[in-house]
């Protein structure tokens, strides 16, 4: 069962286009909610004039923040956000008010007729601008949200003695999650309970937020999760759920809301841009001596998960290596960009892009092979991480390096396409499983009726295959046919809190809780088998919580054991570059991933393939520009024609605390790809791109500059 490529249960329905998603199930007779978007980057709200809107036939109401009867602050880590803005607009796509109508058209017309009187304020679009003295304060607390420093040893001693010192500035852009299914939600009353159907990655958190903003007791709110068509972290924080809940609450009728793709582009959360100044040094034998980085992270209009993303960024900021001397300085800064929040990789795509580019440059400067250089410094069992956590097992990094070395040796570069030159680049990474230094237990409840097993846990199936993975874990643990098992994950009433589905933590955390629960169930069944049938009470219910072992990060020392285990990977990208135009074609990507244990090998490969494709877009073509990229016309995702051949290699260095040894792969899949590609371009044409994306135009002008300068 473990490792087997069982077909996913939801595959056939999804392929057939069966009615599975939220929009397919919206109530027949419902009110419609449409957003009023800000349209300016920064300003004070003077007044919201509803009169013309309410005069539209079919229009029922215009809601602003004041209409929420409960506690309006929704910011989770930092209370800098309310369910709708109180008196300030902080980004162009911000939803300022809601129009409710009998039909979607009436609501839309009403939304357009709402007049928001604003006093415009100057707007800031980079952390650098926001830190300038005299810059307008986007929040009362000032523009700097957070400032962290980490020091080990003494970097200053090192620069003079090092054999090689490499110093560069890197930057990464805003990018869009671009999941296939635009946001939607609906809510209705069942007796005296408000039932909200949404797409949230954490339905228990959504339930709390709905109850809190409406001032309802928790027991009177139930959140159910619709089937989700992709998320990548974008559906972490409930939004539409809160909007339809208010409409249903006020009118005591079902209410529905969806966003168009254009509204998703304008309004939805993005990945944090980062500006990273790196200085790294190594000795002539290739041992890393020091890494220094000063990092500016764009917190955009509201914090969302910003501080947590920064924690992960910092804990991984020296790469998957041992480095004796370190100096890190990170600032998280507000701007008027659309909110930056959780997106696959959670800070690592940005920092690893910088670190792995630096590693490549150091290897070059030393005349060392890039894989050999990494192997020399790679984390091993017995090493300590940056936070001084001792790695005691399941460190498959070395195996991933060897797998890529072997592939490279066995697959010499092919002849390039006519007019192109070939290049290869590598990058390695590690990824702590679970929330950085925060307790994140997961609870599972089993119900066995003698024939069939039902597994209850509020895990978010968003297309990654969590249901299938848990199914196979349960089938293996109980040694029963998977056809007798059902996974129920989408209702706050019946499903215990699994914690959020993110941080690549579900297979490890919920899978482990499930494995433990199944073991207890077997013990109980075995014990029961010794009694007479009359003594047996069915259904048997077993509830189990697994809390991964970790410690918080102690400040200011920045020490601790923030993750129970880490996933590792090395990727190699093979590109063809046209020296005449700068065009980059991504030919192949080899992706060797230590996943501990693959529960379903094909699903793990699917995650790797999807992650590589996303990393390729990040590297070569995706950049979100507020006001300018508001459709797939202008926001350039790779198409099937642009996708490389992807060669996943699964390394299984089993994690003793994981279910059957499993760790995780969802986010690791993405992290090493962009630097591998940029390193490959460097290999092909001798120029390095420091600012993603590596558009053909940038490559071309970099080559020009090199010709003229050199």
């Amino acid at each position, binding site marked *: 069962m473990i490792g087997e490529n069982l077909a996913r249960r939801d595959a056939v329905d999804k392929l057939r286009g069966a009615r599975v998603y939220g929009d397919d199930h919206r109530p027949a007779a419902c009110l419609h909610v449409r957003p009023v978007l800000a349209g300016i980057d920064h300003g004070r709200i003077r007044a919201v004039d509803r009169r013309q809107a309410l005069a539209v036939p079919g229009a029922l109401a215009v809601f602003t923040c004041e209409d929420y009867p409960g506690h309006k602050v929704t910011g989770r880590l930092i209370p800098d956000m309310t369910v709708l803005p109180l008196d300030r607009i902080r980004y162009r796509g911000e939803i300022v008010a809601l129009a409710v109508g009998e039909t979607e058209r009436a609501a839309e017309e009403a939304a357009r007729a709402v007049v928001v009187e604003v006093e415009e304020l100057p707007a800031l679009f980079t952390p650098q601008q926001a830190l300038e003295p005299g810059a307008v304060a986007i929040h009362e607390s000032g523009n700097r949200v957070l400032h962290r420093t980490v020091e080990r040893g003494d970097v200053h001693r090192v620069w003079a003695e090092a054999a090689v010192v490499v110093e560069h500035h890197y930057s990464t852009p805003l990018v869009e999650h671009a999941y296939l299914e635009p946001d939607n939600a609906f809510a209705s009353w069942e007796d005296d309970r408000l039932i909200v159907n949404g797409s949230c990655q954490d339905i228990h958190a959504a339930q709390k937020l709905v109850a809190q903003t409406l001032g309802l007791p928790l027991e009177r709110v139930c959140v159910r999760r619709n089937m989700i068509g992709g998320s990548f972290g974008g559906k972490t924080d409930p939004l539409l759920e809160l909007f339809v809940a208010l409409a249903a609450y006020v009118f005591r009728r079902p209410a529905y809301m969806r966003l168009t793709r254009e509204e998703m582009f304008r309004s939805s959360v993005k990945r944090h841009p980062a500006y990273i100044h790196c200085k790294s040094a190594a000795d002539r034998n290739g041992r890393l001596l020091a890494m220094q980085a000063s990092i500016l992270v764009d917190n955009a209009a509201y914090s969302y998960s910003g501080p947590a993303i920064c924690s992960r960024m910092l804990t991984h900021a020296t790469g998957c290596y041992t480095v004796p001397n370190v100096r890190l300085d990170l600032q998280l800064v507000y701007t008027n960009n659309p909110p930056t929040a959780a997106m696959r990789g959670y800070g690592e795509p940005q920092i690893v892009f910088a670190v792995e580019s630096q590693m490549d440059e150091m290897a070059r400067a030393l005349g060392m092979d890039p894989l050999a250089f990494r192997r020399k410094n790679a984390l091993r069992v017995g090493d300590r991480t940056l936070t001084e956590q001792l790695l005691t097992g399941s460190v498959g990094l070395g195996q991933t390096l060897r797998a890529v070395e072997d592939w490279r040796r066995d697959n010499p570069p092919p002849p390039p396409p006519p007019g192109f030159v070939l290049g290869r680049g590598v990058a390695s990474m590690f990824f702590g499983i679970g929330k950085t230094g925060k307790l994140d237990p997961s609870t599972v409840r089993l119900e066995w009726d003698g024939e069939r097993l039902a597994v209850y846990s509020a895990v978010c199936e968003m297309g990654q295959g969590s249901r299938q993975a848990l199914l196979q874990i349960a089938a293996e643990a109980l040694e029963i046919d998977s056809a007798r098992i059902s996974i129920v994950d989408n209702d706050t009433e019946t499903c215990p809190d699994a914690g959020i589905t993110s941080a690549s933590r579900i297979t490890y955390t919920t899978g482990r809780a499930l494995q433990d629960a199944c073991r207890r169930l077997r013990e109980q069944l075995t014990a029961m088998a010794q009694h007479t049938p009359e003594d047996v009470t069915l259904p048997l219910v077993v509830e189990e919580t697994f809390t991964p072992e970790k410690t918080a990060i102690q400040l200011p020392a920045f020490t601790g054991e923030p993750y129970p285990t880490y996933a590792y990977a090395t990727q190699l990208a093979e590109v063809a570059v046209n020296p005449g135009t700068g065009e980059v074609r991504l030919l192949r990507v080899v992706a060797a991933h230590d996943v501990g244990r693959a529960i379903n090998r094909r699903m793990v490969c699917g995650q790797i393939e999807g992650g590589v494709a996303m990393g390729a877009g990040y590297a070569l073509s995706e950049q979100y520009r507020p006001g300018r990229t508001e459709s797939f016309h202008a926001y350039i995702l790779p198409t099937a024609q642009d996708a490389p051949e992807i060669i996943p290699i699964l390394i299984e260095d089993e994690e003793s605390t994981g279910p059957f040894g499993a760790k995780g792969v969802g986010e690791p899949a993405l992290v090493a790809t962009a630097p591998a590609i940029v390193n490959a371009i460097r290999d092909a044409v001798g120029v390095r791109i420091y600012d993603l994306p590596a558009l053909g*135009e940038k490559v071309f002008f970099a080559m020009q500059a090199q010709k003229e300068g050199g």
Partner: protein
Amino acid sequence: MPQYVRPTRMEDALALLSGETERCLILAGGTDLVVDCGEADLSGRILLDVTALPELGQLRLEGETLRLGAGVSFTEIIESGTIPGCLGLLKQAAASIGSPQIRNTATVGGNLGTASPGGDFCIALSGLRAEVVLLSARGERSLPVEAFFTGVKKNRCQPDELIVRLDIRLPLASRYRKLGLRRSLALPILALGVSEYVDGWRIAMGPVTPVPFRPVETEALLTGGGSPAEAAALAEQEVTRLGGGRRSSLRGSVEYKRKMAGALLAEVLKEMEEDRHWRNR
């Protein structure tokens, strides 16, 4: 709801177009029309579906002329055994448009009718000696493709006229090269169509000006026997001298387009030279 008609005879289509000019929306593949209409209220309009008109579907050689119906889809062009190798430009341009699904329904006439400065077929046809044939209840007329486009999304087709076909003189050889932000579903950063006729060369490129741009000095240079390297340098100069252009469009800065005019032309001329050698072996 709009009215929908799909006449099978040209005279019926033209009569409707002339009698109800303001109400008619011409529908062939619909890949531009459907998107442009969006959620607009089309009640009172007439969707005039021209895909059943035989004249629009023609694709045949008549001596030294290819008659290409405006209703021919890009997939049909790619798969056509009628289009000779010397018109490689047409197949390459067709293959560079959109995606397979779009190519299955989008038509030559639609691309020309939309007249976008980045329209691949607008650029491609401008790189050939071609005539656009227009039909209305008032009769038939034709004009050279270089006279057809008048501005961004503007052409000389009158509201009561239908683009019926393109008459294309066969060149000795031709090629199309497109540089986009990705390899499919991409509007061009810069695209160019080049054809060599017995008595002269022809080059068209876009999007650089509101209508497809002809670097006439470069054409003259090649016609006079100039080398590919000289031609590439001159093409870059001609585009640079145009000046203007949006400093940094999402699809490439002005500086990049200028450089690419030369770079892409150099590539195309090199390929055409290799083809010529291979042909003359």
